[in-house]
């Protein structure tokens, strides 16, 4: 739980640093053969933390993709349970999406964007004042689902934030060859909704833009597209090689705009030191938790397919158990 006002740069930096150090740890764990694979989020911490920290966990809900560790950190999600996805334990993670206010991890880019619209309609019908935020990238913005979702949200004036992390690259394809017209935020105008670009490496700017969009959503002002301009400092995934498609100079130029460095520069040294100690403790805890995670009982293969399982499925489960007993 966050004890301080999340507007506090110190608190935002603390959360970002947890995400950064945990991300580094996840890459190391992949290199050590612990995690089968991982999608690094380095460089995008300000976008993720700044936006998720602005949410009210009592009534809002976030729909992540697969590279949103910072959002999970800011929402206080159980990080071992979150990273269990990458460990190959359970596709949607082991965290409780309702209690965490974070939908299950989702690898279909654009798919969950429509879910946020439905959830926002549910919130509007229930009059909770809650808003949905959906995370997607510049690549996903090409998906029909994203366009359909924005159009629906515009038609119904729903309390939803379309939070695009434009990190410059959809795997190997740069934004210039991905987004016609060059701007995802500009598309909002076509749907009659608010659209803003924000410096995605400035955590306070992201926080403020998200808070403003949330206020507007709660006041019945409808949806907002926020395009956070940022950079994926690492590879698309641990099996990707950015050297094949982008220049080192490009990476270096963005490294100079590292959101962590920028935030730390505005904080006293002791605050940064304390944040590092905190992050190191979290990383230790998460690493231990991950290494202690066992494969789920094989029986769970059959669990959760249905609320009311079919006879045929129960029969398959029974027959499978019999083969084990032989």
């Amino acid at each position: 739980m966050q004890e301080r006002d999340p507007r506090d740069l110190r608190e935002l930096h603390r959360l970002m640093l947890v995400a950064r150090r945990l991300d580094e740890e996840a890459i190391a764990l992949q290199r050590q053969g612990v995690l089968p694979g991982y999608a690094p989020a380095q460089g995008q911490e300000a976008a993720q933390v700044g936006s998720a920290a602005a949410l009210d966990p009592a009534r809002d809900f976030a729909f992540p993709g697969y590279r949103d560790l910072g959002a999970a950190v800011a929402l206080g999600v159980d990080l071992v349970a979150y990273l269990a996805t990458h460990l190959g334990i359970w596709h949607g993670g082991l965290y409780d999406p309702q209690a965490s206010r974070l939908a299950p991890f989702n690898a279909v880019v654009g798919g969950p964007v429509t879910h946020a619209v439905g959830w926002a309609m549910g919130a509007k019908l229930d009059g909770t004042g809650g808003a949905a935020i959906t995370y997607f990238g510049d690549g996903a913005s090409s998906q029909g689902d994203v366009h359909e979702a924005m159009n629906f949200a515009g038609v119904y004036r729903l309390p939803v934030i379309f939070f695009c992390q434009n990190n410059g690259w959809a795997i190997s394809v740069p934004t210039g060859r991905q987004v016609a017209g060059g701007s995802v935020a500009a598309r909002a105008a076509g749907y009659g909704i608010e659209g803003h670009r924000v410096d995605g490496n400035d955590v306070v700017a992201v926080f403020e833009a998200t808070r403003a969009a949330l206020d507007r959503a709660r006041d019945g002002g409808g949806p907002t597209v926020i395009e956070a301009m940022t950079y994926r400092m690492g590879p698309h995934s641990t099996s990707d090689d950015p050297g094949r498609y982008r220049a080192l100079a490009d990476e270096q130029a963005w490294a100079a705009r590292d959101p962590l460095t920028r935030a730390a520069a505005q904080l006293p040294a002791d605050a940064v030191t304390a944040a590092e100690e905190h992050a190191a403790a979290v990383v230790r805890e998460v690493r231990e938790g991950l290494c202690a995670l066992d494969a789920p009982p094989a029986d769970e293969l059959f669990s959760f397919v249905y609320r009311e399982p079919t006879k045929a499925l129960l029969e398959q489960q029974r027959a499978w158990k019999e083969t084990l007993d032989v």
Partner: protein
Amino acid sequence: MSELSAPAELSLQQALNLALRHACEDDDRVLVFGQDVGTLGGVFRVTDGLQDKFGEHRVFDTPLAESAIMGMAVGLAMHGWRPVPEIQFDGFSYPAIDQIVNQVARMHYRSRGVLNMPITLRLPSFGGIRAPEHHGESLEALFAHVPGLKVVSPAGASEGYHLLRQAIADPDPVIFLEPKARYWHRESFDPTAEVTMPPAGTSRIARPGRHATLIAWGAMVARCLQVAELAAEDGVELEVLDLRWLKPIDADGLAASVARTRRAVVVHEAPLTAGLGAEVAALVTERCFADLRAPVQRVTGFDVPYPSGALEDEYLPTPDRILAAVQTTLEYRRG
């Protein structure tokens, strides 16, 4: 109860309308939405009058985008609503397949049972109405193949009413395939009568017989009943089994019937190859191998795109083709 007194004779379209009306009355979390379902009452008038009665927040039109309709259903279900979306025609459900397969069907699984998806997708389905291209498809095998989904198709008005109520009450996602060729056929039944529906995945014997079992669903049930009538003139007593649930399939009911009649013919509109008839034949063979006196016969559409109206009658299983298959199974001799 509805303020309309229930007529003694109802068409499938009226019965489904009544089922939606009663579902909305009984559970204020039920939402009906889709293209043209509000003001117009649906292109087949299945949602006629519902928006007037329950308001625009319960029954509403959507923009023309099937993927978003289903994606929205996912989000609404996550917020505790019970969505009953309509996709206007079977052939237009393909844009929503990603949402149906990757999201709707798996959300309960991937969330380890935390998120429920009590979604009923209503889908006007199958052929027989001389529709334009993409307005007549048989998608049951495709949906039945997907873990996490349930699939159901009613044969007529009474079945339609009760099965739709059951589908909406079901805690899992149900694909409800409405045989559009039967929308305007009327039958006598009293929707106000208390009926205890057997559990999901239960078939019914639409007509008892002893010489062979015809297995069908949707509009083909009526066709098989017609064939049974014709066969009876020659003293052949055909049992007609209305499968009703296409996932889960009532393997016990199939086996009980075929064990009695020892012969089975499965009839569907969809193309032959990898159609649901293959699944039915496999289930019957697994359970009734010793009882069977002939291989399970399949009478189906062909492995061709659904044709124009002019050739529709050639494509759909005809009484003659069904009778020929019956004859094959009755005359079958080993060796």
